[in-house]
């Protein structure tokens, strides 16, 4: 994957939510370290999957990239332009290029606006007048996402969850974005509908060449969608690699544990050969994360070193370039025969 001229370049991205407390005068008594030093790039047209358990800071990362939140540290560059602390006005020119799809299709559409208004809203705000008028564009977008274009004057409550999420996709596409952050776009939907929406997003990504940051809480969905996958744990990336490397040669214990939780049918056959790993215990609180390696409280390989020394995210021996792992004692390389790596993962869909 080209990291030479990335569309999005994130380095050292940090978000700490202050915790206020104390009486009678409120002051900051601590911080939720929701995101703590992320480094990754997204190339043009590329889809990066961001995976981790609940509460590990995925949504926060998405909101930082789209600048719904102000980072407490690090930098975000879009096409070489530093947007880390850009104001609303400074962001205006690139607002149309970075869009977002939200998790909850019920909360993400204004119940008092018609679908047409919802989808035309972004064009109105950015003063974009497509040839043929906004209404024609709305119809076109509805058609692209597989909805009846005649339904533009209906209200969100008249649609099902899957249809609503399609409306959300149409809104994100309205401005011809270059990058879409999709925050668990299907996890609120029925399993039967999830595949349809993922397929829609996949088509959109391929046909319109839009780069994606696709957030999910398990590795199964991301597998069909993302060329590159980053695994997050407690605000840090623990492993990032090309899809085939990550699924075929997971080096971090946490990645391995997540992979073993993926239903067998969606992983290739030799997954049965893999031992099933059960993660015990809960994710520790991001207010007071474990010292050293944050995964050590649940890691079956943890040693003294893990408690004192935070493992850097580096390319460890046996990894391909671009495959970075943050672990002192990585899993052995190449458990999966090489010929399986080239297998088309979409056949599993």
């Amino acid at each position, binding site marked *: 994957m080209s990291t030479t001229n990335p569309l999005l370049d994130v380095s050292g991205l940090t978000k700490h939510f202050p915790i206020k407390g104390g009486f009678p005068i409120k002051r900051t008594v601590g911080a939720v370290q929701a995101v703590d030093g992320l480094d990754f790039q997204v190339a043009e047209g590329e889809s990066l999957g961001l995976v981790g358990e609940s509460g590990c800071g995925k949504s926060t990362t998405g*909101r930082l990239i*789209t600048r*719904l939140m102000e980072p407490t540290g690090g930098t975000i560059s879009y096409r070489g332009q530093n947007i880390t602390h850009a104001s*609303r006005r400074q*962001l*205006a020119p690139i*607002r*149309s290029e*970075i*869009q*977002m799809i*939200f*998790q*909850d299709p019920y*909360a*993400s*559409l*204004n*119940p*008092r*606006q*018609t679908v047409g208004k919802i989808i035309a*809203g*972004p064009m109105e*705000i*950015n003063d974009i007048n497509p040839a043929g008028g906004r209404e024609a564009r709305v119809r076109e977008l509805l058609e692209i996402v597989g909805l*009846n274009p*005649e*339904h533009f*004057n*209906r*209200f969100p*409550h*008249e*649609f*099902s969850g899957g*249809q609503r999420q399609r409306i*959300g996709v149409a*809104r994100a596409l309205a*401005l011809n974005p270059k990058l879409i952050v999709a925050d668990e776009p299907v996890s609120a939907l029925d399993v039967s509908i999830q595949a349809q929406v993922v397929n829609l997003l996949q088509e959109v990504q391929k046909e319109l060449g839009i780069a994606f940051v696709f957030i999910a809480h398990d590795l199964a969905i991301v597998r069909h969608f993302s060329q590159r996958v980053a695994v997050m744990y407690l605000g840090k990336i623990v492993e990032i690699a090309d899809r085939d490397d990550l699924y075929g040669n997971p080096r971090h214990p946490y990645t391995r544990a997540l992979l073993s939780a993926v239903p067998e049918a969606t992983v290739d056959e030799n997954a049965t050969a893999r031992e099933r790993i059960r993660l015990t215990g809960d994710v520790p609180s991001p207010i007071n994360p474990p010292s050293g390696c944050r995964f050590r409280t649940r890691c079956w390989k943890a040693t003294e070193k893990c408690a004192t020394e935070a493992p850097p995210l580096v390319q460890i021996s046996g990894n391909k370039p671009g495959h970075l792992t943050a672990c002192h004692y990585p899993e052995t390389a190449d458990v999966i025969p090489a010929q399986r790596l080239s297998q088309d993962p979409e056949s599993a869909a």
Partner: protein
Amino acid sequence: MTPPTPSPAAPLEVTDESVEKSITSPDSKGSESRSPGRLAWRRFKRDRTGVISACIVIFFFVIAIAAPLIAKLYGKNPYTTYASARPELLDDFSYPAGANGGMSSEFWFGIEPQLGRDVFTFLLYGIRTSLGIALAATILTCVAGIIIGVTAGYLGGRTDYFVSRIIDIVLSFPSTLFFIAFMPVVYGLFVAPDDNVPTWLIAVSLIVVLSAFGWASIARLLRGQVLGLREREFVEAAKVTGASPMRIVFKELLPNLWTPIIIQATLMLPAYVTAEAGLAFLGVGITDPTPDWGVMIGRGAQFYSQDFTFMLFPGLSMVIFVLAFNLLGDSVRDALDPKSKR
């Protein structure tokens, strides 16, 4: 005879599903769009009590607006003391000479004791004054409450903290007591103690003072609503596309706040009608020569043991109006917010 064994739950489920479908499936009914407003309107129309109350309330507003016209057709006004030109209208004790408070084809609702004014037009104009003041106070209260509440909720932080404390203070005032004590002070600010207070000044002061104490409750309610709404993803969706705070407040938030605003306003208006009448009755509101619901009830209270009719008309009409408006408020709430079953 044994009833036929009910078949397993299947048919029931099927009907359930078809009902569910007709609600959610967009293909069920042509291309007619069912906006939340239109759905509420449909629910409202099915509510008998609500429709009847609405008719009564509308009737009151119509006669209030049309009072001068009605008075003209009727040929009298509320100011003339008809008894001074025609002393035979009142008896020796200055009570209406005719039966039932002097009701006749000429004076439909009778005539006033002592001064001999026409009750019908006095009541019409009284309703006009009272509703006008109550309506203006309601509008001013809502506007102030919306601006303050939405701003506090949307900005949050220090502004919100500051505004919330002011709301607490305002709500903790014993407002009725305060009106009685404070209204003369307000008049005193503008008029020398011995002069007559002009009616417009009284009306404006009433509107401002009622609103000054009324905005806090609606502001608090809306602040809470906005605090909830601004975290909703559709607000973030608007922000991602670059929407300005103005646009978010007016286009995204406000349309979702009309329900509580309308509900609050329908509860507020009848409360203001009674408050205004109460102040007039206590002598700190509109005063006598100006026709007013409260003034009339105050006058009626002086004579009710001898001439009950004079008390009856303003009293009964106000009870009907306030009752109808409160029932209307309940129906509006049920229609707009079907989940809030009392």
